[in-house]
């Protein structure tokens, strides 16, 4: 895991060349900065800045309630570890329109870069497989990103992509931290105003 050589700032634009095709939710901190930069803090993205662990079950709710849309969850290793049970919930529901991307830097980036479990022994891809996700892929090198982008389109959903990245900062992007405003923005865009 220490050989991961992906710069996280270059990951999402290559995985999601057409982010407007997705409804997205991102977990707190770095994942949300990267996702907000990808979409320009777009109206079909809901970013979190708290509720650590909520991104996967939140995205599952979106996927079950919007079966005609593709839903992507952008999370990090620390956030995902906070609610691993949600992977089992996803596997049992098996929505055919959900992709989970975990940006694994093995660090708690938002609080000072303290080591996390995935920098020691824990393998989240194997956990996702064990939870029962039908399609799991792990990458750690830049030249693997193109194949991962295909995986997100072609593999049987729900999909779990673990992208091991170098420790380093997310995109420096300032997004709205007002969850009520972000909820209204998303619903107005998706459901129509009023």
């Amino acid at each position: 895991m220490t050989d991961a050589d992906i710069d996280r700032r270059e990951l999402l634009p290559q995985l999601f060349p057409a982010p407007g095709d997705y409804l997205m939710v991102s977990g707190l901190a770095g994942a949300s900065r990267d996702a907000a930069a990808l979409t320009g803090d777009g109206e079909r993205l809901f970013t979190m800045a708290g509720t650590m662990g909520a991104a996967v079950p939140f995205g599952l709710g979106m996927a079950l309630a919007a079966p005609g849309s593709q839903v992507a969850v952008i999370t990090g290793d620390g956030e995902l570890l906070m609610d691993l049970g949600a992977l089992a919930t996803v596997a049992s529901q098996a929505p055919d329109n959900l992709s989970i991307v975990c940006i694994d830097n093995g660090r708690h980036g938002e609080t000072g870069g303290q080591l996390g479990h995935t920098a020691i022994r824990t393998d989240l891809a194997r956990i996702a497989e064990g939870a029962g996700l039908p399609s799991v892929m792990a990458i750690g090198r830049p030249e693997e990103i193109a194949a991962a982008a295909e995986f997100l389109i072609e593999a049987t959903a729900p999909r779990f992509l673990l992208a091991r990245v170098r420790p380093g900062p997310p995109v420096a992007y300032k997004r709205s931290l007002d969850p009520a405003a972000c909820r209204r923005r998303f619903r107005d865009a998706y459901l129509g105003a009023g």
Partner: protein
Amino acid sequence: MTDTDKNAWPAQLFEQLIEAGVRLFTYVPDAGNARLIELAEAHNAAHPVLLSSEQEGVALCAGADLVGERGVLCMQSSGVGNCPNFLSLIKGGGFPVLLIVSMRGDYGEQNPWQYPMGQAVEPILAAMGVLSFRVERPEELEPAARAALAAAFRAGQGAALLLSQKFLGAKDF
């Protein structure tokens, strides 16, 4: 409560929820919600979702709301203790979430492990901005459910329907 009432209330509550547009029934299994979930499993428009932990249901219902769907979270009172951080979505984000809580550690409880969390349910919910609608008598269920549904899905509040042990009956040990 008579045996007839005990059998009838889940069907009445389920119909009320379906009529209010609830489609997702997220739950952690409990004796108090078992019949309600069976009804959801048998109904075309209802979608039951077995959770690993109760907090997932808060996030799942919020995600469903984001795309215009209504969900409820059914759980035992001990599960309320797993939810507070995720309940930030309600107070901070204005996500309407309806909790249906079968109480333990309440009236007639015989298991000492149940009391700490059972007695903390209402203070925790209040601290996180969730309104409690408590049901102690059979005739209170319909109006309490109506009030909780209105608070959640009309007024955008967090609401909890608390089915007390006086209403459900305490478990014998």
